[in-house]
């Protein structure tokens, strides 16, 4: 079984978000980049298939050279090979097109992406790839089992969970549940040493067309001062919620 895991490189979840160049770019100063959490759940699930089914794992990213540190981490966790498409990511369409072009000639059985990245939160790339390549697609995926050429996946929907079955190849948008938080692996020294020897191929982008463009970032307005209510005067809270906030 051949697996491809799509990796976004995103600011660590604890990062303070600031902007630069007249608010047109994310300020990377002092920010640590990590594997997008939803992608890391997927990569960890892929490792499980590697151990059980002897699957091979490639990881792919569309981005600039600075992303290679994060790709090396994916190799240290256990991926066999990394591919970086050497292009600044402009929008989901451009990213999806380039990854699709890469996949086209290969015979991946399973492509794992995250439900969304935690920086741009588009929820777009895996769905677009599935349509460009005409392969099955399941997002918000919280469980995945493979049996031969068949997949059984659970999708979190509004108000419940549905179990879906289909044939491979399949692309998923994964999230927590694929594996648990406690299953995530911190690379050990041996993994880190091995990762240095593993292939990290840089390939030229196939095309650079994009359809959307981000112009300017804004930070949320400062929150107005909190109103404190005495725990012995809960009528006051109900009064504020009813008459001032008008939410009950």
């Amino acid at each position, binding site marked *: 079984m051949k697996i491809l895991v799509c990796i976004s490189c995103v600011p660590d979840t604890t990062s303070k978000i600031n902007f630069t160049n007249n608010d047109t770019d994310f300020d990377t100063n002092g920010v640590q980049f990590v594997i997008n959490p939803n992608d890391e759940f997927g990569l960890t699930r892929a490792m499980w298939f590697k151990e059980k089914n002897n699957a091979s794992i490639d990881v792919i990213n569309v981005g600039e050279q600075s992303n290679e540190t994060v790709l090396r981490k994916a190799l240290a966790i256990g991926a066999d090979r990394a591919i970086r498409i050497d292009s600044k990511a402009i929008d989901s369409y451009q990213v999806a097109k380039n990854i699709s072009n890469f996949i086209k000639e290969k015979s991946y059985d399973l492509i794992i992406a995250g439900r969304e990245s935690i*920086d741009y939160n588009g929820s777009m790339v895996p769905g677009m790839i599935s349509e460009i390549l005409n392969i099955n697609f399941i997002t918000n995926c919280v469980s995945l089992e493979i049996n031969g050429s068949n997949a059984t996946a659970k999708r*979190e929907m509004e108000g*419940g969970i*549905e179990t879906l079955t289909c044939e491979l190849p399949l692309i998923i948008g994964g999230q927590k549940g694929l594996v648990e938080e406690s299953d995530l692996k911190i690379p050990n020294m041996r993994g880190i040493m091995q990762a240095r020897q593993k292939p990290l191929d840089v390939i030229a982008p196939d095309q650079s067309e994009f359809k959307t463009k981000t*112009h300017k970032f804004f930070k949320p307005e400062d*929150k107005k001062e*909190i109103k404190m209510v005495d725990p012995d005067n809960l009528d006051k809270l109900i009064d504020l919620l009813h008459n001032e906030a008008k939410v009950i």
Partner: protein
Amino acid sequence: MSIIAYIESSNREPKKSAYEVISYAKNISEQLSAELIVVAINVDKTNEISNYGPDKIIVVNNQSIKNFNPKIYAEVIYQICIKNSTNHVILGGGADSKFLAPILSIKLDAGYVSNVVGAPSNYEPFTVKRTSFSNKSFCDVSISSKNKIISISSNSFEKKKIRSNPEIIEFDAEIPDSKITQASVDLSKGNISIADADIVVSAGRGMKGPENWHLIENLASTLNAATACSKPVSDLGWRPHSEHVGQTGKPVATNLYIAIGISGAIQHLAGVSSSKVKVVINNDPEAPFFKAADYGIVGDAFEVVPKLNEKLKAFKAENN
């Protein structure tokens, strides 16, 4: 030229989010003098839709697509777009809409922007505001392609009633075969989903253990609210993952968010920042959540929550 508002349904009725989506699309249709078409799949009750000003309602009722399937639904909407020379498709932020939208964007060769929180600020180029960095910031995004898809966040656009007398058309779609089979569905019992709720009652490790959650559930039941939890609580297995709110869990954009025993890690605050009013109950006055909330109570949840519940019950009894 036409604009399509695709609305989600449940139990053959439009979902609550539908009217926000239609109002958003109505605004664009007025600006562009384009026809507004509401597309509803598996919906019988279309009366209320007419209160939001569409020119046409296209309904697709077909037994073979009673279960949501993103590829098939995207194909059906695509067929309607082609027939009606549609350039703009507006959808809500529900799980199903966001499942099908990227597929539709490839079919239509359209630029697609998700998590949109305001009306277009410009039409040349077409520019909208969306959230980014998991609600820690916003950004302006323009679409350069002729066809455009917008998915709007819930509770981000004012519904506006404009009575119209739309033509209702049954659309006979060509339904492709599904390659994915629904084996089973496990619906969460009797609970209101976080996405549908006007009020969410959420609790954290301060509740000390899953056995104390009846306090949270009782309060939620009084307020007709959904229950949610912080990341550590779902990681510990006290509550299901589907209740986990925050950057790697669910975002919450509700009218009232009540956080009980949640200190307010930056990831959690990001996930709930789009909620309109936030109330924090915590025994630690230094909890970071107090800096991000509208109303706060420093106190022991085990005393405050039952008392608040009794008082709210009395309030509800009086006001209903």
